[in-house]
């Protein structure tokens, strides 16, 4: 009866780690550096991982701690957003879907980090609220409220609830950015 080494499973989580890192950083070079740091940390601190628990959640916790500690060190709120989301877009020339997706991505990268990560964890990667809360080391209620605020925020940024969703232009996006700069979510 040999217990399997969780380190052998790290490779299976690489795509998810990169996806999560890119959602957080919105920059593929920074994301990859973060994934690399996380792999080394996970490898050397694997004894801190409780076998049988959620390895992906554990890895995401290391990833996000790396991100937030770098963000603190760099003391910058403004992310260095590169084309991480838009590059894949050019391959899909379906009209409505593409336009809507472009708007969505523009809105998505503008969300506060905490809302963006809560939405990715719960809304996209299939984490339960409990798993997301554990990953982010906050209360379940906090995650729920971040998800709700994130959804609302996205809907606002995308101009939903009106018929203009399809007509969001770069000008409208700029107006949103400017308004947000004056208004402050935090």
């Amino acid at each position, binding site marked *: 009866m040999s217990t399997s080494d969780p380190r052998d499973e790290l490779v299976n989580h690489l795509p998810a780690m990169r*996806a999560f890192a890119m959602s957080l950083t919105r920059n593929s070079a920074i994301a990859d550096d973060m994934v690399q740091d996380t792999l*080394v940390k996970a490898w050397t601190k694997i004894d801190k991982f409780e076998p049988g628990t959620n390895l992906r959640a554990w890895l995401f916790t290391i990833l996000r701690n790396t991100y937030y500690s770098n963000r603190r060190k760099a003391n910058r709120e403004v992310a260095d957003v590169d084309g991480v989301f838009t590059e894949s877009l050019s391959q899909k020339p379906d009209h409505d879907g593409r336009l809507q997706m472009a708007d*969505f*991505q523009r809105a998505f990268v503008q969300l506060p980090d905490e809302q963006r990560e809560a939405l*990715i964890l719960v809304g*996209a990667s299939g984490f339960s609220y409990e798993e997301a809360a554990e990953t982010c080391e906050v209360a379940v209620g906090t995650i729920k409220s971040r998800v709700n605020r994130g959804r609302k925020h996205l809907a606002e940024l995308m101009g939903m609830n009106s018929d203009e969703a399809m007509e969001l232009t770069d000008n409208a996006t700029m107006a949103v950015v400017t308004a947000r700069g004056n208004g402050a979510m935090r």
Partner: protein
Amino acid sequence: MAHDTSKQADGDAIDQNLKRVYDDLLSQEVPDRFKDLLAQLKAQDAPADETSGGEDE
């Protein structure tokens, strides 16, 4: 199944978009550097002799 208020529809659209963004990211090819790194870490850790059993550092 039949409660399609417009608010519900917006929520669904957001979730669909979120999934699509995430799936796009997930489907990107993982650069070799990560598999190389894992192989390197593994090689560093491997004890000189391969007698199985003991797991102490």
